[in-house]
């Protein structure tokens, strides 16, 4: 699943989450296929991003995500509590990588 600006979606792509207009009205349900006409209408209704099926093209590898985690915690190496939090986050990241691929 990936979040894409309405200006970048293309006809034929499949909606992964309900699309609501700025009025709050739900316009499309998951599984619906986009057409050029529908995209134009969504644009007019003020929809600015859409969740589409398919792998996120910019999905980061788990190694990169874990490396970024390390960098966020630089300076806390001697803070036991912070190191515990970091370990919990790392385990969540690994878990997400194992069961979160869609």
């Amino acid at each position: 699943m990936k979040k894409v600006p309405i200006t970048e979606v293309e006809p034929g792509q499949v909606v992964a989450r309900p699309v609501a207009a700025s009025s709050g009205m739900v316009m499309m349900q998951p599984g619906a296929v986009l057409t050029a006409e529908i995209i134009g209408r969504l644009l007019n209704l003020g929809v600015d991003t859409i969740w589409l099926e398919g792998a996120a093209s910019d999905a980061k590898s788990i190694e990169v995500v874990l490396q970024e985690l390390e960098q966020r915690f630089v300076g806390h190496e001697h803070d036991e509590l912070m190191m515990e939090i970091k370990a919990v986050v790392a385990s969540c990241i690994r878990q997400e990588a194992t069961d979160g691929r869609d």
Partner: protein
Amino acid sequence: MIDKSVLRAKVEGTTNISTLPDVVIKLRRMMDSPSMSAAVVGNEIGKDQVLAAKVLRLVNSGFYGIRTPITTITQAMVLLGFDVVKTLILSASVLDILELMNRYLSGLWEHSVATARVANALADRLKLPNPEEIAVSGLLHDLGKVVIAQRFPNEHREIRAIVDARNCLQVEAELEVLGVTHSKIGMWLLKRWGLPAKLVYPIAYHTQFLAGREFADRTAIIHLADVMCRARGYGYPGDNRVPAINREAWNLVQITMTDVQDVYLQLDHELAGTLAL
């Protein structure tokens, strides 16, 4: 550096953040009458179609972890309960500001929503009354960053440059450039708008926790929720660093690492692919 009183006057004069002050009056009225019934709320929302639309948009945004689209306020009331819908009105009222967030700082909205969700979960665990109110403080805890970007564009650029160059916390750059933090700036504005202290204090002091202050429990929760969301990497709070957890705040909230993990897992599940506003 701009003189602090000049700075404050300019912050307090911020009326062009969408139509907020109007909406805040309504919000205050609602907060002030705890006895207000579901019927009154339903009626009130019904009168304001724009607000109704926003509430529905928020309901369907993933913020409440609902995956089947809800199309009417009545449906929302039945499914979510009165208290949650009341909070939704508050949240919908501030949605205008939240939408501004990502325009100025891409990812701040996601960080704010995640902080609100974590704050709500922590408040639940602590069995504090009105966890939804604490969630609202979580949603707005970085409001000051939006104000800085909107009211002080030159200083905002300077702050961004410092954060990028040094990879430091945004608050450090704020102190250097403005002499005050976004927490204080957020407080100035929210106080000016007349929001109650129980909502404002946690925002004002989330970066500088002190155990003796009023609403310390709520403040500790927002501080912890903010750090937890930064640690996990939900959204972008304006820098890529995690501030240290204040020990007194940690002790006050009384959670274990297992709780922390549970909250993360719950949120990972709820936020997976949501937050599409």
